[in-house]
């Protein structure tokens, strides 16, 4: 158990777009830091320590970019660490910040980062280079083909159709219409998704997230600072994280200890977070989830691993509208990662968007009576997973 209770007391996000050419990378990160501090009613002097959220920097083209950002995020004279677990980075950075405060080491921590994935046209080339150079790089593995492989396996196991994944895209883009920061948004149809160009079976173009630029930040505080500065914080009541083997081929077949296509690792991360947060019936107790879903097929296995329904059942609940805004479970009210993916901060955006729902600051996307919200992040070769349970009250 944590020594100190921890809450999100400030949130900052910039709009997510393909390109932001009127600002440098570090100016973009400053925008989020400034917005989060203002939201919390704090000044840079009130921040004890900083966690910088950033995944591979080859997309934006400057190595070890946290050193570039030091001045813009007011880190001079303060402890700073950068956290990097691929796509899971934002969630891991949040957990590092949480540990800083929960341990009693710091009172107030700023978790901040930015990314510009479309700064290079060679993004999938860069992503191919995260794989083993001797055994796997030669076979065109990248984030698209990696998850396409998992999805083909999932479809075979549960009889899921391409149309069922297309409905997830339709719902996400519709939800994103009410999110001014979302990159992709609009009223599209299942037919639009089905007719978009084929990429990697079973994916079409619309099944895949955009390459986004943007920044995000949250301010974490202990109980004393929270009481002083925030009347409606989002309390971090549970965190869970798990790491798995780099080799996806170890996670398929009868000898696997965590089924690849089920994202089975998330079950264990969820169990840990739920135990801390007192969640025994996720579907009843949690109203909002912000899932890390860069592809249309990534929601179902996560919802199943996190205990919202049985394996293979999420597709039916999705079809009947149970995951629509305000229905049984509001899945990605923000539009999620399918609509905006600034990779190095995406996991942090998930936490931020979940926190906004608890804090009553989600704007046109605000749902009534959100008591508990859950965010996830996934990175590497579906290998780093983490989740965070936020609540309107301390557990």
């Amino acid at each position, binding site marked *: 158990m944590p020594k100190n209770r921890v809450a999100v007391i400030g949130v900052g996000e910039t709009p997510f777009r393909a390109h932001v050419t009127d600002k440098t990378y570090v100016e973009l990160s400053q925008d989020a830091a400034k917005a989060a501090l203002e939201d919390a009613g704090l000044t840079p002097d009130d921040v004890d320590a900083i966690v910088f959220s950033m995944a591979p920097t080859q997309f934006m083209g400057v190595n070890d970019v946290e050193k570039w950002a030091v001045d813009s995020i007011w880190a001079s004279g303060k402890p700073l660490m950068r956290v990097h677990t691929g796509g899971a980075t934002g969630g891991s950075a949040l957990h590092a910040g949480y540990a800083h405060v929960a341990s009693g080491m710091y009172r107030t921590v700023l978790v901040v980062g930015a990314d510009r994935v479309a700064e290079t046209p060679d993004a999938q080339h860069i992503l191919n280079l995260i794989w083993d150079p001797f055994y796997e790089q030669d076979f065109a*593995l990248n984030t698209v083909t990696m998850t396409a492989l998992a999805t083909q396996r999932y479809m075979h196991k549960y009889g899921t159709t391409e149309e069922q994944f297309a409905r997830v895209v339709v719902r996400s883009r519709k939800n994103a219409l009410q999110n001014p920061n979302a990159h992709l948004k609009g009223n599209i149809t299942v037919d639009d998704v089905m007719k978009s160009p084929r990429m990697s079976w079973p994916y079409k173009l619309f099944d895949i997230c955009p390459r986004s630029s943007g920044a995000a930040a949250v301010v974490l505080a202990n109980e004393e600072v929270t009481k002083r500065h925030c009347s409606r914080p989002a309390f971090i009541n549970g965190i869970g994280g798990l790491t798995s083997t780099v080799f*996806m*081929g170890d996670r398929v077949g009868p000898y696997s200890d965590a089924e690849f296509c089920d994202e089975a690792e998330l079950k264990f991360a969820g169990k840990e977070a739920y135990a801390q947060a007192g969640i025994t019936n996720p579907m009843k107790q949690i109203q909002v989830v912000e899932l890390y879903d860069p592809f249309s097929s990534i929601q179902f296995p996560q919802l199943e691993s996190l205990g919202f329904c049985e394996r293979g059942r999420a597709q039916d609940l999705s079809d009947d509208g149970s995951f629509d805004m305000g229905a049984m479970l509001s899945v990605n009210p923000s539009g999620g990662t399918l609509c905006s993916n600034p990779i190095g901060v995406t996991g942090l955006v998930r936490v931020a968007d979940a926190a906004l729902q608890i804090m009553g600051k989600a704007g046109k996307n605000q749902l009534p009576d959100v008591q508990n919200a859950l965010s996830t992040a996934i990175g590497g070769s579906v290998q780093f997973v983490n989740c965070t349970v936020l609540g309107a009250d301390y557990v």
Partner: protein
Amino acid sequence: MPKQEVMNNANIITGEWHVRYNYSIGKVAGKFFEGLKHKKILATHCSKCGLSFLPPRAYCERSFEPFDQWVEAGLEGVIEAATIVSVQFENLPRPPYAIAYVRLDGVSTALINFVRGMDLSNVEHAAQRLNPGTRVRVEFIDNPQGRITDFHYVLPAA
């Protein structure tokens, strides 16, 4: 991404990185790649947990013991996951192509490679031939170089 749009924008300065590497492959991978030159796929076996792993490794993550045996993988196996790529990714092969994780006979884990020799003109149809559970066989190139690309998978003749 629309490249032209970026190039014409006054707020853009362009850049490129060129870096080169000499990767050390170590003893375990060295033995595996030497095996490929003789058209053999060698897996590491742990006598404590009874599992055989591809790619081969120095240490068994299940039993936390060094792998103590090498075994020769079967040259046939079963597809665990597959996809067909229809789009040109930067610096990656020209589409279309099929890739699959295949668990070779006698091995506990699956190894990725291309599935060659298929008609991929109809993606939906071709995808149905690559379902998990489908048997495939290994086909070596004529003059193996000690690289993972020395072999690929093929569907059995119809």
